[in-house]
């Protein structure tokens, strides 16, 4: 048995019931004791492949071989019994139960009729000590931070004897500090002989953590490479098939007058707790202002206030000279507000409506799309077909339901809708979260184009690379306050940003004042 035979997936083909071929003759193998990245765009078939490895889906063709033995992974239990564990993007934890209860769920220790709480805690303690995780077995899941919850998930797999650990985009939800802590633990697991399959969009992380990388494109394996032999742009080129610069090129901004003005703005949550504390900033036409910050530091209430989802608070908040809080969402839209929300499925688009219907949702009362009492279908079709082409939405046509599309394509539909409206002020909340490199690149370019044609853009993003690349000016929010302001983003590093985001450093009031620039 050679090294490569530790886990082998041979000629895996998976066709879903709806006819979509997710994997077409995919080959993948991994060695004992390595961290192996799987990279590919959304919809490339990574998740499908991993679901088959974890027994959630069964391949139509092909073989899975573990340590030289062919296995049929018919359910997660069978996969677990074969030493495979998986940490999903959405945690599989029960919030009201304790860490120990979550970890031993399904393999509960009992004495007589009773669930043995003490034994469960011992099991948890012993395995967390063994791998150097510092975890309190009695803590309730709902009281834990995202980073700790992820550790619980990893422990859950280890307790069940996982030798192969699949991590699906584990760093998407972590702060830079939590990410580096996770990497330390993953390297320790590798030293202990575990094999880790690491799925990620973040090529920098792949580069720094992984030994080898397998690239999947449109259901096919492109190849497996030693990470030290390929650069980030090599990987992204292999993923999309064309060379994609990870940074979007953009010239100097040429800002006009302030379009969005927030002055001494204070916002409160439902309990009257102050969530945005006395902030002042502007977004001028023709510039992109970025807001960096760890989630939950006031971004959400701020976005909700600007987009008219919630009113209240004190101070000035105006758009193009109109008081935002005295206008309905409809009026805001008529005045040129565009909004790309964080959650594309619950706030952004309607999965059960067609692409056309979603695209004109903000424009239904435009004269152009109405003919008497009826909608002017031919014109709608003509326009949406053009947008589908312009924005490169991969679909069967405008009548396809949005819910059938992959995440990146749904986001493109959304972006197309928002940017084809008036779009004088564009509020983008995580515009490229969880979508593939190609779609990310095209959306970022669009935003830069919109800036150059005079839109005022407010960008909220957890992706520091994105925020540093796109923003002309940058604000850092911490606990509802502006703690840093950078008039020139080109000199800012991610590390420096991290200190402000975590509240370790803070600029003086004089430096922050610059965020409010009416010009």
């Amino acid at each position: 048995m050679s090294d490569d035979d530790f886990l082998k997936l041979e000629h895996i083909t998976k066709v879903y019931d709806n006819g979509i071929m997710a994997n077409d003759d995919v080959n993948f193998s991994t060695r004992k004791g390595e961290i192996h990245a799987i990279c590919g765009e959304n919809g490339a078939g990574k998740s499908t492949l991993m679901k088959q490895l974890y027994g959630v889906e069964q391949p139509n063709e092909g073989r899975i071989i573990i340590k030289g033995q062919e296995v049929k992974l018919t359910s997660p239990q069978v996969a677990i019994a074969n030493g495979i564990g998986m940490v999903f993007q959405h945690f599989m934890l029960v919030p009201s139960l304790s860490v120990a209860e979550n970890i031993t769920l399904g393999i509960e220790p009992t004495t007589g009729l009773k669930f043995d709480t003490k034994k469960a805690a011992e099991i948890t303690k012993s395995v967390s000590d063994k791998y150097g995780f510092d975890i309190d077995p009695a803590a309730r899941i709902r009281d834990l931070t995202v980073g700790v919850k992820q550790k619980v998930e990893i422990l859950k797999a280890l307790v069940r004897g996982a030798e192969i650990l699949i991590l699906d985009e584990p760093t998407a939800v972590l702060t830079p500090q939590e990410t580096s802590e996770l990497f330390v633990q993953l390297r320790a697991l590798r030293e202990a002989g575990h094999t880790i399959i690491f799925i990620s969009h973040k090529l920098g992380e792949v580069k720094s953590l992984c030994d080898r990388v397998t690239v999947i494109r449109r259901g096919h394996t492109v190849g497996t490479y030693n990470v030290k032999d390929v650069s980030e742009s090599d990987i992204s080129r292999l993923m999309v098939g064309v060379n994609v610069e990870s940074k979007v090129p953009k010239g100097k901004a040429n800002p006009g007058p302030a379009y969005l003005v927030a002055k001494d703005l204070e916002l409160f949550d439902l309990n009257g707790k102050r969530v945005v504390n006395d902030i002042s900033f502007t977004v001028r036409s023709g510039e992109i202002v970025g807001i960096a910050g760890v989630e939950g530091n006031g971004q959400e209430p701020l976005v909700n206030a600007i987009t008219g989802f919630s009113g209240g608070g004190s101070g000035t908040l105006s758009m193009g000279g109109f008081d935002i809080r005295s206008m309905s969402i409809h009026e805001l839209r008529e005045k040129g507000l565009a909004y790309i929300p964080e959650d594309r499925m619950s706030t952004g688009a309607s999965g059960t409506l067609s692409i056309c219907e979603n695209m004109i949702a903000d424009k239904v009362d435009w004269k152009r799309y109405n003919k008497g009492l009826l909608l002017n279908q031919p014109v709608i079709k003509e326009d949406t077909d053009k947008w589908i082409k312009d924005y490169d939405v991969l679909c069967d046509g405008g009548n396809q339901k949005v819910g059938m599309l992959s995440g990146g394509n749904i986001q493109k539909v959304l972006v197309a809708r928002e940017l084809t409206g008036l779009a004088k002020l564009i509020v983008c909340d995580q515009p490229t979260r969880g979508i593939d490199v190609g779609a990310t690149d095209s959306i970022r370019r669009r935003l830069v184009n919109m800036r150059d044609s005079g839109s005022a853009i407010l960008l909220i993003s957890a992706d520091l690379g994105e925020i540093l690349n796109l923003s002309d000016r940058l604000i850092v929010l911490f606990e509802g306050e502006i703690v840093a302001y950078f008039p020139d983003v080109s000199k800012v590093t991610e590390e420096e940003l991290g200190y402000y985001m975590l509240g370790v450093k803070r600029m003086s009031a004089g430096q922050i004042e610059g965020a409010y620039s009416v010009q």
Partner: protein
Amino acid sequence: MSDFAATLGGIFSNPNFYFTVLSTTVPILLATLGCAIAENAGSTNMAEEGIMILAAFFGVIGAAYTGSVWIGLLVAVVVGAVMGLMIAYFALYLKVDIILVGIAVNLIGSGLSAFLMYVITGDRSATTSLHSGTLPTISIPGLSDIPFIGTIISNQSVLAWIAYLAIPVMSFLLYKTKLGLRIRSVGENPDAASSVGVSVNRTKMAALVISGILGGLAGAYLSMSYLPYFSKGMSGGRGYIALAATAMANNTPVGSFGTSLLFGFFYALSTYSSTLGIPDQLVTTLPYVATLVGLVIFAINVQRKERKMLHESGGGHSSKAQQVADASEA
């Protein structure tokens, strides 16, 4: 008005009233515990009403034809378990909406029991002619001699004792056993449970069968303890009241005891209506009005709790739709 107060005072100082409270609470309590365990597993058991009436009917038939109330009780329990199993089969394996299954069972329950009663006994309202008998009552020697308290707890049906014992048993089951842990995890995050190999359907089915058994016991109590015969529509909406009581109790066994006691109290009060000089029809609506009031109080409490949680977690986690709704209210 002072007459009214005096009568009310008379009722409240009479130990027999509290005896009635405890006995009217029994079927509500059993049904509430049944709803609670199903709810913990993430399945709303709407069907306690239907299960109760079918169990009450078949229990009486079983008792009458075998001459043994114990066999009648067994029949009632089996009917409950089978109904629970059936609901589970339809809802979990055939994927019918569980609320619709519940409504169907309730309609079948009231229709089928009335129809079969007519076929079997020729009577359209009650099975008094069958002389099916009642389950024995229990009085514990020392306890019955205690003044006041003795009157309240002595001579309660054996099923009443079972019902009150079911509270700690249910607590133990839910919070101390493997099955309970699985039931709660399946109810809270079925994906988490199934990802570690816990069968969601089988766990829910276990909870629904237990729920059915409790409904069966409630039915047996109605027709073999509370009254010595089956009468048409005798479940009287208790299954629905149980749903409200469960929600108010936040699905906990001990909470279920408290809320069903509340409804039991109003049921008991309505049976004393004639002495109050208030129109009968008005007083018999008391338990249902109490349900409505209870649900309103419950809803307000939930909202308050959510706000408190929001506060603790630093705010901003409610859904956008909720915020829009709140904003438009304001």
